[in-house]
């Protein structure tokens, strides 16, 4: 059950997108998200959808993965769509008691749904094609200039790496502890909300205890290997931009430009 979580999952591959510099992928994703929010009409959004689809095609990641990553936020999507339909003034489709759905609302709802889906799909493509280690590495390098302002960039990146590294471990551990308590007759599936919350105690306490133990062991292991922060630390894998990276960046900048152009030509939908 816990094993079905796919957020942040990495699928190793050899596609052009996999091989892009992680820093560039991070920048591209940011541009993509900006473009999604700048777009205020169907034309601009269609451009975004097209480039998103192209990205998935090149990466070789199946679109069914998008469906999977959308599943957990389905309630938010539906909620947004319904709210937009009801609370936007305009020509009514139907009226029921004090609820009034409008054509303008429907249009906006569709726009919003496309935007959220693209947002999730786009950022998922980043994590599907980039290993967590490469990603945190990229974050550290991109925010490097902030070190001048005393931002603990290396420490933050290290924290991210450790957190990502331990998610699967902790999921496995939770599964194990749940099984062990169920074997002792713990009942987690029935009763009132309070009963269920109380049933979590036998799982959370051992989980906390073992997390602290792991943290302690990890700190010791890092010290044994002479870890002393980012100062003077060299890297085995040097990141280097290649021609492909700049082509990819150019494509994304073009997308943003196109979206802005569409905004100027086509009427806004707000």
């Amino acid at each position, binding site marked *: 059950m816990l094993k079905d979580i796919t957020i942040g999952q990495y699928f190793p591959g050899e596609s052009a997108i996999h091989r892009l510099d992680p820093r560039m992928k991070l920048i591209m994703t940011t541009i993509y998200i900006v473009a999604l929010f700048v777009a205020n009409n169907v034309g601009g959004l269609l451009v975004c959808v097209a480039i998103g689809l192209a990205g998935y095609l090149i990466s070789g990641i199946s679109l069914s993965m998008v469906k999977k990553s959308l599943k957990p936020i389905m309630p938010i999507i539906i909620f947004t769509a319904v709210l937009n339909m009801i609370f936007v003034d305009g020509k009514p489709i139907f009226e029921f008691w004090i609820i009034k759905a409008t054509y303008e609302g429907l249009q906006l709802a569709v726009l919003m749904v496309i935007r959220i889906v693209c947002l999730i799909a786009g950022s998922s493509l980043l994590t599907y094609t980039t290993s967590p280690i490469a990603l945190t590495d990229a974050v550290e390098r991109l925010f490097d200039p902030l070190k001048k302002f005393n931002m603990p960039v290396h420490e933050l990146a290290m924290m991210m790496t450790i957190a990502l590294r331990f998610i699967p471990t902790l999921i496995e*551990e939770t599964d*194990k*502890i749940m*099984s*062990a*308590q*169920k*074997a*002792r*007759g*713990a*009942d987690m599936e029935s009763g009132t909300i309070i009963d269920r919350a109380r049933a979590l*105690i*036998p799982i959370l*306490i*051992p989980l906390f*205890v*073992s997390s602290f133990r792991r943290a302690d062991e990890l700190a010791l292991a890092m010290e044994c290997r002479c870890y002393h922060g980012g100062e003077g630390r060299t890297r085995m894998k040097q990141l280097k931009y290649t021609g492909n990276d700049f082509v990819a960046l150019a494509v994304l900048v073009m997308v943003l430009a196109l979206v802005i152009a569409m905004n100027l030509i086509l009427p806004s939908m707000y």
Partner: protein
Amino acid sequence: MIAVKTEKLRHVYSPQTPFEKVAVDDFSLEIEEGEFVGVIGHTGSGKSTFIQHLNGLMKPTSGKVFIHGRDMWADPKKIREFRFMVGLVFQYPEYQLFEETVEKDIAFGPTNMGLSAAEISDRVRTAAEFVGLAPEVMQKSPFELSGGQKRRVAIAGVLAMQPKVLILDEPTAGLDPKGREQIFSQISEYHKKTSSTVLLVSHSMEDVARHAKKVLVVNDSKLFAFGTVNEVFARTEELTAMGLSVPQVTKIFTELKRRGFDVADNIFTVEQAKTELLRLLGKAGGNNA
């Protein structure tokens, strides 16, 4: 009376995905009530998946499990009854402790069973005695105890439910020789006193040979063999071929026999070896005289 029975038990992980893996493939077996069964197999052979089916933590993909003649999944709502009938001690069970005191932690299982307060405290005391926990430990926090003591508390937590079938997954992993010996003798004692059925998963062939009457061998998701210690360890070559082994002392006697000594080849424990060697020496001495 049959304590545990499985019928074509099969479990597939992540079916219909690229990660599909058959973990338990067509297990059909019957374990008599009161038997002490050793379960051996590689890491990842499917033995852990198999034992988790016996108390309903995992649901078979197909096939059936019967405990004392009752079909486990006939009514999924009653699955907890089976969890109380079949006690399962996981690997490194000390990581499941959570209560403020040792006493309360051991009482967790019996409390879930809905027993009376008197019955619970009675069971907690008996279980603690079985695993050799001193009365003054009972009011301590389980987190203050040593690793070996924590392990005992965790085992007592399962024993307190007084399961008819007790399954232990490598109960002595990571303990020192003295701790191992104590835990094994306590399990043996529990087995004798309560005449419950015991399944012991272990990587130590010596321990299996010494404590178990029967051995169940799982290899590559399949039930390779299920028979008495004699029958199973007689298949030395097959066991070695799959990367398992037989007790060291058995190897010595197989080799002795190969070199022409007149020894029995069903020697599995040091005690048996001692008797056999004395017999041989006595005989040899007699010949010389």
